[in-house]
């Protein structure tokens, strides 16, 4: 138990510290790298509470895909650092306000303030400890039955976003010669290859 508590504090500390570094570090590439560190330690916290499926999905989706794209974009951009710092104090009150609202929501949700029987904290306490099935299976059982329509809607939202991104970036330029693989493959052998019988020392 002591080891687990120690691990929790280490991971939690790294999450908080790297999250702070995301905001304060001067170089945007460092910010993204600290964000990745934060994701990673959050995944470790999920493992500690036994939610290994969510931990792995967090790493695969956020670290393996989303953060890679972030890093891609940030590295390609030519960002002026001093210009970026200028707005920091101006937007600080807004940022703080948003942070406070989120904190209040978390506290309300967990039932620290205004404890109601439907708050997350109360639900978690009331729920039985299900250790008979692993949590991949447990999620699968509710996700594809009870929350089936919500799941489909989430998929549709992503599809719309994807199509939107394609529509925004797709440009067809006239006069570009494209490779048509199927045409190349369907070309008869007679058009492409001629077999020549070369006499020795005769050349073609």
């Amino acid at each position, binding site marked *: 138990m002591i080891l687990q508590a120690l691990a929790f504090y280490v991971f939690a500390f790294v999450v908080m510290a790297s999250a702070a570094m995301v905001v304060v570090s001067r170089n945007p590439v460092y910010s993204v*790298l600290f964000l990745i560190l934060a994701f990673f330690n959050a995944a470790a916290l999920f493992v500690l509470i036994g939610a290994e499926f969510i931990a*792995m999905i967090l790493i695969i989706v956020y670290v*393996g*895909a989303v953060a890679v794209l972030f890093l891609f974009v940030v590295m390609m951009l030519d960002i002026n650092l001093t210009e970026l710092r200028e707005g920091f104090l101006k937007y600080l009150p807004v940022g703080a306000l948003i942070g406070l609202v989120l904190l209040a929501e978390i506290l309300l949700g967990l039932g620290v303030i205004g404890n109601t029987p439907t708050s997350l904290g109360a639900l978690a306490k009331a729920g039985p400890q299900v250790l008979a099935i692993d949590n991949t299976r447990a999620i699968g059982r509710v996700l594809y039955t009870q929350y089936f329509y919500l799941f489909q809607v989430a998929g549709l939202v992503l599809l719309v976003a994807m199509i939107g991104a394609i529509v925004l970036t797709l440009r067809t330029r006239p006069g570009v010669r494209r490779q048509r693989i199927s045409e190349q493959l369907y070309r008869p052998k007679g058009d492409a290859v001629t077999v020549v019988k070369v006499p020795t020392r005769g050349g073609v």
Partner: protein
Amino acid sequence: MTADLIHFFTTNWLGQAIVILAQCLAVTIPLLVAVAYMTYVDRKVWASIQLRRGPNVVGPFGLLQPMADGLKLLLKETIVPSSANGVLFIIAPMIAFMTALVAWAVVPFDDGWVIADINVGILYLFAISSLGVYGIIIAGWASNSKYAFLGALRSAAQMVSYEVSIGFVLITVLLCVGSLNLSKVVLAQSGWFFNWFWLPLLPMFVIFFVSALAETNRTPFDLPMSEAELVAGFHTEYSAMTFGLFFLGEYANMILLSALGAVLFLGGWMSPIPYAPFTWVPGIVWFAFKIAFLLFIFSWTKGTLPRYRYDQLMRLGWKVFLPVSLGWVVITAAVLQFGGWVPKL
């Protein structure tokens, strides 16, 4: 005395730590030796494809060549370019090497021979392999050199693209198994060699292998380090052991993906014929044979195929493999559901 020792190693936290450390070393050291000799085998295979002799000077049959190479890399000076980002420049090869090593924690070498028999083994492997790209991106950015950066961008785009199809391949396999635990994946393939998943999921096996080539940046997909255009790609600026770590990581990744292929499609530690003389052979030997077979195909393709063009590479990943693997997931699920073959849990 022995009872005391067993008690110490199973209950005391220090004893447990020693056991875990010993297990890690028991995996890592043979792995590093395998990596060293994989470079030798690679060069010998290419040599015989090109009618050469390959390394044959250092030691008998050139067998000490990997040692000589390793020693050379260790003794050279590590040069950090003055315009490079020092910290990230050093961290990048470490990430590349580390991610190739930690994935081995969940690979089952034999029945019960696995460091961490976790329930999400496949997802863990997938997560770790998706981290490998960071070593390369960070290396390319921190080098502050256009060739390195271009190589890193290519590599990142390539690895992300092919990971998608590997993901679908993993989904088909786990549909057939009904578990994410790698030991259970192997146990689900027990029996004759035609019971292994390579036959029922043959298209997936092909896609997996080609994607594995792309994931490890090997020919025909070695565009990130295509020497004709990018000098050496993302490790252009690296020298000595920093380069060595990239190299070791690349080969360790190749062996890892071969091991994954052996577990998912070639029945892991199972013997091909489930009868007497074959089942006497220890499972780890069969597993090693299967890994060696896949690694030979890696070398063979490198000796045979020319390099893809970049747009062709992307087309293959997104327009061919993605739809085919997605379709195969749907087909497999439908066949399992309506054929009544859904694995009993």
